């Protein structure tokens, strides 16, 4: 076929296409940002674009008709469905800019100040040369002589950069070593600063922490959206993408690395240092992200029996992974527990220390998936319960990421006469994010405006309650320009289903636990931590009888990663945690379904 031009508005980016392709595929090549939450399956409707003019485009598919309904006649199409074959101009509705995603404020709550590195001043002596047959051994002997007690290890790569021995006589070198004896850096001049970096790679957001290894402190932190979002919002659609497209895995990997390298630079800019001053890295994340970073195929994470390639810790030269740190720097991937229990939840255990407490604690990372750990210093039970993308605002009619303008709190007064909304950044409402929906449910419940089975009450003023396309819905906001934010009964049902699955997961763990009652509950994850603890109680996500106070920690996984970066012993502790954790499989549990139906109800039980 003849090549044709495709133009994207408002950016006016034009690209030549040579075969029949969907708008979404072309947009990815053009570097134009169109959201593809469901991975281009025509399910979510979030890739809606306006086709201004086209000389060759496919007829609307059944999915497009169902989702877009009347909008089709005004020229709207789903970018993942509409296939182009001739000149076309497309306008993209104002996109949620990546940088608008709420960034977390860095590490809160302290952790012990640790100095992970030792410095040794080294001098070459004739006696060392006489005693040893190789440069490597000469260096190590010198270190011992200077009082470094542990068995030191040196990467040959570091030695390659050293001047020849005859030039080294009577010269001083500074060695920087990790406490376990690994040599990080060899320098001619006294070292001013040396840094480490920790990453928490989530499906939605990536957290990065720059750590001063001499001070034992976090020097800067940052959160950025995971650029892989263009390939699907949830992990499974990315796994599918990696298998359906010949270069899928490579694309996912390079988009992740690009994102991480950008973050390295941004973090360095924050405190005015250079990436080559970063010698050590620690990475945690869900297992799919872990595999993508390492370039492991994702097939074993795609279907039963769901097994990660390895559950061991991995230490690699950063350079080999494509992460630009110091030439000789390393990255450590902390070990995952299972296919759907990543090193992030393991790091969160380390950070919260529940594996050292006598009394049992419950730790949950809530997002589109919920990782749950229940246990104490003797035993740790864990599981992963599927939740719903609705939790992160996706797939909801008026759903949005937690970005400025997203409704995050809803308060009801006067029996529903007045609804007060709080948005992120205090802007006019643009949509509602997951925590907003949960907050709405909790306050409707408190006001008696919703039944425990999720039905909206007719006590809600008729100006707000109405019949929509998907059934009954409640109008939360109507702007001057007519823009509206609603929550539908159907969506409430979906949230309840997800909540039911998580609660059932907790209940299954409690049944396996059998011991003393849980005395402490910690909720983490950027979604989990944005939820009001009282809301969680109100909607009954936390079973009755379990500890009264619920603590939220925004980024337990990130804190855990920093701890592992700062303390070499912590890395060993992480390995111990992994072996302590006992995985409880929910899909094989005969009681799960019953517990899920019980757990659906909006009540504390």
């Amino acid at each position, binding site marked *: 076929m003849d090549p044709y031009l495709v133009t994207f508005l408002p950016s006016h980016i034009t690209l030549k296409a040579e075969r029949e392709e969907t708008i979404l595929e072309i947009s990815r090549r053009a570097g134009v940002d169109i959201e593809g939450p*469901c*991975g281009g*399956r*025509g*399910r979510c409707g979030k890739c809606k674009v306006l086709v201004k003019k086209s000389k060759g485009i496919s007829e609307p*598919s*059944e*999915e497009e008709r169902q989702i877009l309904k009347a909008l089709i006649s005004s020229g709207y199409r789903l970018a993942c469905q509409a296939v182009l074959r001739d000149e076309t101009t497309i306008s993209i509705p104002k996109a949620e800019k990546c940088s608008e995603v709420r960034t977390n404020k860095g590490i809160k709550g302290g952790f012990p100040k640790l100095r992970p590195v030792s410095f040794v001043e080294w001098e070459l002596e004739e006696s060392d040369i006489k005693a040893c047959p190789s440069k490597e051994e000469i260096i190590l002997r010198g270190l011992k002589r200077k009082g470094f007690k542990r068995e030191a290890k040196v990467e040959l790569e570091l030695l390659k950069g050293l001047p020849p021995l005859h030039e080294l006589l009577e010269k001083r070198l500074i060695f920087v070593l990790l406490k376990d004896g690994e040599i990080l850096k060899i320098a001619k001049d006294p070292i001013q600063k040396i840094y480490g970096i920790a990453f928490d790679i989530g499906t939605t957001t990536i957290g990065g922490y720059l750590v001063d290894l001499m001070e034992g402190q976090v020097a800067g932190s940052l959160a950025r959206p995971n650029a892989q979002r263009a390939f*699907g919002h*949830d992990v*499974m*659609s990315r*796994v*599918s993408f990696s*298998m*359906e497209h010949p270069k899928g895995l490579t694309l996912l990997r390079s988009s992740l690395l690009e994102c991480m390298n950008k973050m390295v630079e941004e973090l360095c800019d924050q405190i005015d240092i250079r990436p080559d001053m970063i010698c050590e890295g620690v990475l945690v994340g869900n297992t799919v992200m872990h595999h993508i970073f390492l370039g492991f195929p994702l097939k074993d994470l*795609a*279907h*039963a029996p769901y097994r990660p390639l390895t559950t061991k810790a991995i230490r690699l030269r950063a350079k080999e992974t494509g992460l630009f740190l110091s030439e000789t720097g390393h990255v450590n991937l902390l070990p995952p527990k299972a296919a759907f229990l990543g090193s992030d939840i393991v790091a969160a255990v380390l950070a919260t220390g529940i594996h050292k407490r006598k009394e049992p604690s419950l730790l949950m990372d809530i997002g589109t998936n919920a990782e749950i750990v229940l246990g104490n210093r003797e035993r740790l039970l864990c599981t992963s319960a599927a939740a719903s993308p609705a939790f992160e605002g996706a797939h909801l009619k008026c759903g949005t990421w937690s970005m400025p303008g997203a409704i995050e709190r809803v308060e009801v007064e006067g029996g529903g006469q007045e609804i007060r909304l709080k948005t992120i950044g205090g802007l006019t409402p643009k949509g509602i994010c997951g925590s907003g929906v949960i907050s709405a449910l909790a306050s409707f419940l408190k006001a008696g405006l919703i039944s425990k*089975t*999720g*039905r909206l009450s007719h006590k809600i003023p008729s100006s707000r309650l109405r019949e929509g396309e*998907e*059934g009954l819905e409640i109008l939360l906001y109507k702007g001057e320009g007519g823009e509206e934010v609603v929550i539908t*009964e*159907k969506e*409430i*049902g*979906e949230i*309840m*289903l997800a909540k*039911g699955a998580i609660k059932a997961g907790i209940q299954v763990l409690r049944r396996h636990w059998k011991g003393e009652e849980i005395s402490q509950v910690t909720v983490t994850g950027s979604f989990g931590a944005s939820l009001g603890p009282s809301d969680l109680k109100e909607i009954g996500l936390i079973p009755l009888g379990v500890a009264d106070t619920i603590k939220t920690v925004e980024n337990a996984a990130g804190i855990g990663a920093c701890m592992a970066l700062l303390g070499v012993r912590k890395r060993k502790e992480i390995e111990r945690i992994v072996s302590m954790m006992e995985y409880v499989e929910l*899909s*094989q549990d005969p009681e799960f*379904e*019953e517990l*899920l*139906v019980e757990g*659906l*109800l909006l009540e504390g039980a």
Partner: protein
Amino acid sequence: MESAEEVLEGLKEAIIRGNRKGALELLQRSLELKVDPQKIVDDYMIPALNVVGKRFEERKIFIPEMMIAAKSMQACLDVIKPLLPKEEGKKKGVVVIGTVFGDLHDIGKNLVVMLLENSGFEVIDLGVNVPPERFVEEARRVNAQVVGISSLLTTGDPYVKKTVETLRASEIGDRIKIICGGAALTPNFVYSIGADSYAPDAASGVSKIKEILQIDS
């Protein structure tokens, strides 16, 4: 004292509302009043479930209420099934159903099974994680008219496709009807791989199956 009719209507209502305890009590009472168990099932319980299915299809109720109602139905069925005469009656058709290979979700599929059984189909449930060949074997063995495939994971698509292809390539390929459902699938995909039908929920699944087998009501 209330009439049997009132008790039975109450039972129907209790199932619809998902009041399991109430439903079980009323069921017990109907049995004490010596109502024919078959009549209880055919004239009250099944119609109750149909009302639930229909309301769900019409978006009058949503997942929670449907699941809760289905649970009360199941509880009542567990009590009354042993009391029913061993059924010899003619079935509307035989359906082999299962969750696709690699996937262990079964709650939705179980609902479809329940609804189908109560609409007069004989259902052979192969459970979860079913390899394509097993669908073929079982469908052949029981001489099924329909195969139902459930898939909840995006990553299941290739296996749904493979299952449909394997069925089509088998000796029953040209007469077997295939219907797919479950949250991961879209109608477009399902039709494009050569299945006969798609249904977004259990109730419409039953109507679709009737439709492809050309059974009215």
